[in-house]
């Protein structure tokens, strides 16, 4: 499997999966004492119902009041396709170790690597060992490694090789015997989408996709989920022909981030923000994901895809959904996805796309003190490429809460620095009882959810400048909880992998959400494809002039990040 390097090292994906009804036991939820009072992690707590009623009732040692006991996955095997890719080495294998280190993997948990290399179990174990040593967030502990390494296996073969998959099926059966994994398998396809059909068909042919009634089979896929609506549907047809939607987990690693889940806590556990979270008070919303890196070695993937498909379609639209949605009746997968879908269905593009979108690509320039080359000079990029590395889009949500409030989404590579944030910018005070000079430099209030790298929340408001004169200017107040201090805090992939193994789907986008976001993006891509090459912007700056003009037409400016 030489080709299966990680599909998308930088922009990673989106995920989502099953309906609530098909998680192992349903989610009636044990609302007994105290569940509702946990405000700081309302979202986390609510989604932590993976160990189901039936299991708890049958297990005398589990008690819903016993909040110390972590959610631990049941006995299972994770089969990893694409073990030699960047994503596996930098994120997945370390995350598996970290889960083991935190005691969240079941006894007997086994990991099977599948690749073309002529390897033995111990070679794959060595690769895992090195990846863990280099990238794991928790300290390396010999006893944890021992536990993990006993369950590491390797299966050699090509995706087209029936024999290899027969061997895999046998191997899994044997692991069930020797490790007590009970026929529960997760298949992680960390391979480019073009290999999905053959891998999925092989899983079907060998009966691996369909387990006995008392065991589960799940498949995890990474973005990109197609490059437009049609291809997304085709891709889905391939997986859904073999796996039910409830067994398909689409990874959008952004949704595993603590701050992103905190959006739900912030909005729905407080009474302070929700009353002003609407068109009556909000002027507009800016959602930004800026990267300082170029395309690196991803030319083959990136060219023809571009910034909008790579980032806006998944990460930014998911963030928009969380910020814009109505309150879900619960944090179960069903209710959460229903609200996200509603807001995605209400998305509208402005009539004239030439005035409401902007795109650009980086030219040569200076980025953070280093000279860097332009996009078309990158290796593997054709000189006549019209792929954008910067995209800005204005959308509106056609519902009572948000009518007339624009949501500006922007993303780009080789921008000034790496930052992802959601900024809710409020209207100016209706009346200022100060003289005009006193408030000359007063901007608009803003509530900013910082997603990365410095996770937290910032509130921007006007404050009096100390002194005898009454002069008001903007100040920022920052809040950061654990995440930003703790190097060993859980990584997004840890959370998501655990959710897959437990079968807890709220943080994974449903196929319907994927399709809805393509419906928004497709007309834009179509329009852009007729516009020739994108406008160039010097690397290390904040995008093309047309993006600033787009805001200026609305009388607004991008936040300076």
């Amino acid at each position, binding site marked *: 499997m030489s080709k299966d390097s990680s599909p998308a090292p930088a922009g990673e994906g989106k995920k989502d999966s099953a309906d609530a009804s098909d998680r192992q036991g349903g989610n009636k939820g044990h609302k007994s*004492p*105290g569940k509702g*009072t*946990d405000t700081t992690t309302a979202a986390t707590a609510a989604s932590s119902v993976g*160990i189901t009623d039936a*299991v708890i009732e*049958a*297990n*005398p*040692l*589990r*008690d819903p*009041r*016993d*909040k*110390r*006991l*972590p959610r*631990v996955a*049941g006995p299972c095997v994770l089969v990893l396709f694409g073990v030699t890719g960047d994503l596996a080495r930098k994120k997945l294998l370390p995350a598996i170790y970290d889960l*083991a*280190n935190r*005691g969240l993997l*079941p*006894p*007997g948990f086994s990991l099977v690597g599948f690749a073309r290399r002529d390897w033995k179990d111990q070679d794959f174990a060595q690769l895992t060992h090195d990846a863990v040593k280099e990238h794991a967030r928790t300290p390396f*502990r*010999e*006893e*944890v490694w*021992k*536990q993990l390494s*006993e369950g590491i296996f390797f299966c050699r073969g090509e995706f087209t090789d029936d024999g290899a998959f027969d061997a895999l099926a046998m191997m899994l059966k044997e692991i069930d*015997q*020797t*490790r*007590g994994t*009970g026929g529960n398998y997760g298949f992680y396809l960390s391979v480019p989408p073009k290999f999905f059909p053959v891998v999925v068909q092989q899983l079907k042919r060998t009966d691996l996709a369909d387990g006995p009634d008392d065991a589960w089979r799940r498949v995890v896929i990474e973005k990109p989920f197609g490059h437009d609506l049609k291809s997304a549907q085709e891709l889905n047809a391939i997986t859904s022909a073999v796996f039910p939607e409830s067994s398909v987990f689409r990874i959008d690693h952004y949704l595993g981030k603590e701050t992103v889940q905190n959006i739900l806590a912030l909005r729905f556990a407080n009474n302070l923000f929700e009353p002003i979270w609407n068109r009556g008070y909000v002027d507009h919303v800016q959602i930004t994901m800026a990267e300082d890196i170029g395309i690196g070695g991803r030319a083959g993937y990136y060219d023809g895809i571009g910034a909008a498909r790579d980032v806006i379609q998944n990460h930014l639209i998911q963030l928009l959904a969380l910020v814009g949605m109505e309150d879900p009746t619960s944090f179960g997968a069903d209710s959460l996805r229903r609200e996200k879908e509603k807001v995605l269905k209400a998305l509208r593009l402005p009539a004239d796309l030439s005035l409401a979108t902007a795109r650009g690509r980086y030219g040569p320039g200076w980025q953070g003190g280093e000279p860097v080359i332009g996009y078309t000079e990158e290796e593997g990029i054709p000189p006549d490429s019209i792929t954008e590395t910067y995209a800005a889009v204005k959308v509106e949500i056609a519902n009572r809460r948000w009518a007339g409030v624009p949501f500006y989404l922007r993303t780009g590579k080789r921008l000034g620095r790496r930052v992802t944030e959601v900024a809710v910018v409020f209207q100016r005070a209706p009346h200022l009882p100060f003289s005009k000079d006193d408030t000359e430099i007063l901007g608009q209030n803003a509530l900013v959810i910082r997603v990365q790298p410095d996770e937290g929340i910032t509130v921007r408001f006007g404050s009096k400048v100390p002194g005898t004169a009454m002069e008001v200017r903007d100040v920022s*107040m*920052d*809040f*950061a*909880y*654990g995440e930003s*201090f*703790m190097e060993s*805090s859980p990584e997004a992939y840890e959370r998501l992998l655990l959710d897959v193994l437990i079968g807890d789907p709220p943080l994974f986008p449903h196929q319907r959400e994927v399709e809805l976001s393509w419906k928004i993006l497709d007309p834009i891509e179509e329009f852009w494809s007729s516009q020739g090459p994108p406008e160039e912007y010097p690397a290390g700056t904040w995008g093309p002039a047309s993006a600033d003009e787009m805001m200026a037409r609305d009388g607004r400016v991008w936040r300076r990040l």
Partner: protein
Amino acid sequence: MTSFMLSGTTASKISSQLTHLRHQMGTPAVGMVLTLVVVCGESEQYDAVRAATEAAREHPSRILVVISRDANEPNRLDAEIRFGESTPGEVILLRLYGELTRHADSVVSPLLLTDTPVVAWWPGECPDVPSKDPIGMLAQRRIIDARSANDTVKAIVGRARGYVPGDTDLAWTRLTTWRSLLAAAFDQPVGKVKRGSVEAVPGHASALLLAAWLSDRLGASVKVSDSEGPGLTAVKLSAADGDIVITRADGHLATLSRPGQPDRRVALTRRPTSELLAEELRRLDPDEVYEAAIQRLAKTGRS
């Protein structure tokens, strides 16, 4: 890290010094989420502060360390303020002399962060009824450590008598990994448990609590028997379908045996105090399962 000493001071001087230092460092905003009051002796101070500052990386806190010195000296309050690189919050060591040793609350209460939770922790000796202690009364959560008691059974039984919601014990926190593994072993049915035993070094507080929890949840008698250690070494439960056994001989790697399944090894390391403390600070609501376990132990321990 900045360290600042104040001798013969008062709470209000400490407070203004704190404000002053914060302004000087240019970080006037306070992002701390709770106040942790550590009550300990001089000899325990170093380890306790270390653990508390580690835990503060997960829960940014103001850490007040109350150290009682010689009660026969004239009344005096010495303070040592530390903040800066090593911790996201602040550490204030308070050394109390003379009669002041009996009025520590008068120093602590003006230094608590406004309107955020207060947690009290006694890493060593603790009052008989923590919730009646002047410092304990300031706190929503009171953490003690039965391990440090001479007679652990008596200590825990005493705890049960004076229990109020919010009391908790690091000897109980140490068990979370064991309990989690045991609970996972019961996720697949094993039938009714008839009897069981917990093996540990003599007088091991956590072993007593584990046995009490198991017998409470399983409705079976679970004995504690002595072993060479280190710490907890085994849990054996005889169920209708066979035996569930967890053994841990070296304090690091355990073996889990279940009927009908191969033996499996599981990492089960004894956790450092900082991790235990961080777990305590994660949940500030009453721990009813702990209460049930100590009440159970009180019932059987007395008889």
